[in-house]
């Protein structure tokens, strides 16, 4: 287990029984998780916004083909949600933290937002040296598209950038590159 505090941890979504309103926000396969909760029955009302991400639409949800439209909906509607509302996010990591940023903007505390990671665990990674962002990184060591340095992916995560940090992996002895491992499949 990583000791890095900023590394996000995820848990299967569990319905918060005291919540006055459940707000589900999903993308791609994330809808399957929420479908189970909704099918099992909820004591309080709910809203469900789903970004299809190129996949099928979900019958029980308001579907968004464009992600930007979903963010607009969140920015408009979350500030009006009653106290005691709970936000549930399911999707890939970038999706979760982009959505979490909107919840935070509406004043939701961390406690008021649950997250479950579904789909690929590939990371968005930022080079600490030239700030180039890389999508879908699956290996612990890779070569930066921006500055060409060999980078080691860290567990330090920025919720603001929705990216992990990577730093030069051969800083001590130049040219000594550890073997990349595919850890983030």
């Amino acid at each position: 287990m990583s000791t890095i505090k900023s590394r996000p941890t995820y848990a299967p979504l569990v319905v918060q029984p005291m919540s006055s309103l459940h707000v589900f926000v999903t993308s791609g396969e994330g809808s399957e998780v929420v479908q189970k909760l909704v099918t099992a029955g909820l004591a309080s009302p709910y809203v469900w916004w789903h970004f299809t991400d190129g996949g099928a639409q979900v019958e029980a949800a308001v579907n968004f083909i464009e992600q930007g439209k979903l963010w607009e909906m969140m920015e408009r509607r979350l500030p009006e949600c009653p106290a005691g509302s709970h936000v549930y996010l399911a999707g890939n990591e970038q999706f979760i933290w982009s959505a979490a940023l909107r919840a935070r903007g509406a004043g939701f505390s961390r406690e008021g937002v649950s997250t479950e990671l579904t789909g690929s665990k590939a990371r968005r990674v930022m080079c600490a040296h030239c700030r180039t962002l890389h999508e879908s990184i699956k290996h612990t060591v890779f070569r930066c598209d921006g500055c060409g340095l060999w980078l080691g992916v860290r567990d330090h995560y920025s919720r603001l950038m929705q990216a992990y940090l990577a730093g030069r992996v051969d800083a001590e002895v130049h040219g000594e590159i550890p073997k990349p491992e595919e850890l983030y499949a």
Partner: protein
Amino acid sequence: MKLHLVETAMQGPRVKTFRFQPVEGSGPLPAYSPGSALRIHLPVGEKGLWNSYSLTSNPWVDDAYSIAVRREDESSSKGGSIYLHDRAKPGDVFEVEPPVNRFALSRLAAKHVLIAGGIGITPFLSYLPVIAGRGQSVEVHYSYRGGDNSAFTDWLYHFVNRYCRVNVYDTTVNHRMNLSLILGLQSAGAHVYVCGPASLIEAVRQTARDLGWPASQVHYEHFSQADERPRRPFAVMLQNSGREVQVSDSESLLEALEREGVPVTHSCRIGGCGSCEIAVSAGQVEHRDHCLSEEDRKAGCSMIACVSRAMNGQLVLKL
């Protein structure tokens, strides 16, 4: 540090404000954030008293520390507020500790809901100018017992505009807050802050729980120990050194340990902050704090040294 009392003023029959400035040559006052409290040493009794008071001044513009003190009845007070009201006069010098904040404003709140009972209005006096300066929305709900005790209402009304609502309640005419309504009508980004009697704090916390508020959006500060139970003497055994320390009925465990030279970290001294939590290995604790959870109390493995005592005269501490 040492401060001069420079000015006092009555705010109604029982509340007096005190304004302090640094003694000459001691440099500017340390800055503080809204909600901070000042610990001040008062020459009452043999050893004196350290009392904590919320700062009421505007954190960003004032070059002085202001506090507001309600004069407590002789029967229910250790004498601190009576000393300040009856004896303290401009020119007196007091020993104080730099302000600490255990009741901070949330930076991320979409709206602030401030609930005060009586003199519990004081921390909000430093909140309001800051909230107004940030342009954030705020609601103030202030209840008091009779118009004589309605200190600062005129000052509060100055802040009223489309972002700031002020509601006052006089409980002597049975005009009371409807907490379910106040909390129930808020949106999800609101934070509630409550300061006042323990019963009000408990009612707000319970209502918020029932409405599904996350605990991190509910902030509270107790302003007094407010425990009517008699303080009985007891003995503690310090497990590591084998020493025994007697705690008399006129002192707290924390004071007794300090007297014996046993260092214990501490802050508020009214059982609110949890800094002086001590592990207990044997004996039953009479919990009087506001910070341990029900689970902690049931487990019985720790106590808050500044207020809690022994149930049956004897405790063994992991010290």
